[in-house]
């Protein structure tokens, strides 16, 4: 605990790492949004998750929080291996990859993402929550990642992209978590990860059920319920 607090008060290495990872995560979010092929999105998600897991290891080493080594390892296994494997399997079972399921043109989409990112960074950056304990820029970028993840879910009309949108939102939250709550007890972090695992399984089941019924991964067949 003491070492944790001591490290928190001298966070320059962690701050630098957090900001670098945050920028990588945001860039990969933009790439996912832009990517036409679902398979590319899965690879980008794996890369993004790797960056977030790397941050866990850096924070663990710098602040001497051994729990975060465990968490980073679990996160690596789940988000870099298991989730991409499940999504790749769904894509393999689909007769054709879902390409170009954008509801908006590329320019409009990227512009919207830039505006949302700017909004997220601006709002968090201008809030009077500055403290020597908090890398505010990394937190602000995490907020931008979350907003762009929402955009990704809205503008893509296939179930794999929408699921990736949710998983990448979770990456944004994890990023914020390492910045805000590195000392959160391991049991809580593991519970969050376990929940994510269950959610992944449910997403996988529903994607397969949907594909089984409509022979497609598109969400065009999921737009009948209205009013």
């Amino acid at each position, binding site marked *: 605990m003491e070492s944790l607090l001591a490290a928190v008060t001298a966070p320059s290495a962690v701050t630098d790492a957090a900001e670098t990872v945050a920028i990588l995560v945001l860039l990969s979010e933009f790439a996912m949004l832009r990517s036409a092929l679902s398979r590319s999105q899965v690879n980008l998600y794996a890369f993004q998750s790797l960056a977030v897991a790397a941050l866990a290891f850096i924070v663990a080493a710098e602040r001497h929080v051994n729990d975060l080594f465990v968490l980073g390892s679990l996160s690596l296994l789940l988000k870099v291996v298991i989730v991409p494997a499940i999504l790749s399997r769904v894509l393999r079972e689909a007769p054709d990859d879902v390409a170009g399921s954008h509801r908006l043109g590329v320019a409009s989409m990227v512009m919207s993402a830039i505006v949302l990112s700017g909004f997220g960074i601006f709002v968090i950056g201008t809030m009077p929550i500055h403290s020597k304990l908090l890398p505010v820029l990394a937190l602000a970028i995490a907020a931008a990642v979350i907003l762009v993840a929402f955009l990704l879910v809205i503008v893509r009309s296939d179930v794999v992209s929408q699921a990736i949108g949710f998983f990448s939102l979770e990456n944004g939250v994890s990023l*914020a978590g390492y910045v805000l709550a590195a000392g959160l007890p391991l049991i809580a972090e593991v519970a969050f990860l376990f929940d994510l695992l*269950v959610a992944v399984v449910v997403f996988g089941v529903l994607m397969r059920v949907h594909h089984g019924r409509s022979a497609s991964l598109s969400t065009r067949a999921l737009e009948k*319920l209205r009013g």
Partner: protein
Amino acid sequence: MSAVLIALMVLPFAAAVASAAAPMRVAKVLTVAGGLSTFGLSISLLESKGDAAALAGWLRVDPLSLVFLLAVAFLYVTTAIFAVGYAQPRSSERETRHYSRRFFAGLNLFAWAMVMAPVVNGFTLLWVAIEVTTVVSALLVATDDTDGAVEAAWKYVLIASMGLGVALLATLVMYYAGTASLGGSYELFYPRLLAAAGHFNPEVVRLAFGLAVVGFGTKMGLVPVHTWLPDAHSEAPTPVSALLSGALLTVSFYGILRFYQVTTRAVGPAYPRSVLLVFGIASLALAALYLARQRDLKRLLAYSSIEHMGILAIGMSFSAPIAVVGVLLQVLAHAAAKSTAFFGAGSVIAKFGTKELERVRGGIGALPWSGPMFLLSVLALSAMPPFGIFRSEFLIVEGGLGSSATALVAVLLLLVTIAFLGLSWYASQTMLTPLPSGVVRGEVSTTMALSMGLGLAALVLLGIHPPAQLSELLTRAAGELRGAR
């Protein structure tokens, strides 16, 4: 009382596991037993005046959580009874086994997660419990395996999970708010946070509360993050619709109230009240408009749930203590009324083979018991006396007037009246019209009607004379919520 909390944690889960392995008849018995034991255990907690803890403080019940636990436990038992008549054997032995395993294990697991949400101590496990409700209930929504069910399940799991992602962020931000006074590593137990909240950075707490309202509000069905709700409620099997509407929405509201408690202590009540007021008015207004024009019986009830959630949020925005008592009473009354209405809708759908309001006529003639009870449940939903929602909304309105929020009360009454007109119009059109030829008069199932009777009895009890212990519990819970500076 710690044994009671451990039993609450174990029994519904055991019922879920056993139901997964048992044949349908046994699974039905196990589910009813799980519901009855959970309700009995919850009632027994009233003896302790709603204070109990177990497992080194990881499980904890206080008056506020007991109110929500009672609502969930009551619905668990009535839904289990309804499900006995609802779940019928499929075309083959194998299909029946598969359906029974999925449906009853899922139903018990769903109830278990909702029981755990108010029983666990702290924001972390609360979030986990509510997330578990999402993943389990999403699979339950898809049970009927129709196009509509799959669409509704997908929208539900996607939107609710994203909302809960925001709620998780709220939890992390709240954790950060406490690090300055509670240290770099601590458990997010409620009493600890409430005791230290006065030293938290107000801006951080405001951020956490705003995120929590958006996050948990997504599962609560607050407008504009409600869009999954009408689809999931209308396409799910009826027992699942009843649990979703009567219990899950209020359990999510419980999550917001826990953040509300800390926020009022950290920054005062004005900010959280304003946030809830905005979401509450938006929810009530949109629901009232949709209730005035509906085609689908279960969607009609789903929008009525959004209306009630809006009223809860508005009630919390009033400063008078009596409004908070009204809100908590509304949690209980909503659970009883909405489940009864959904059970009635289930009988109507089974009898007429359709959810379309235009094609259902002569409900009272077709269903001699369920028909009148469905009509009464709609009157209860519309806050007519002598039912519990009349009393709860009366208290909320009284609280609004006591808070000098006269204009707001006028808007509330106007929107509630629009909702009442919509609900009662469609109920009278479907129930009080002549029975078409070819429809056989008779109940679909005795247990389905029995579950409605239990719901109505509870509503009358809450409306006419709530038990003294319950009234005391509500007053104490409201006091806990208002323990602001």
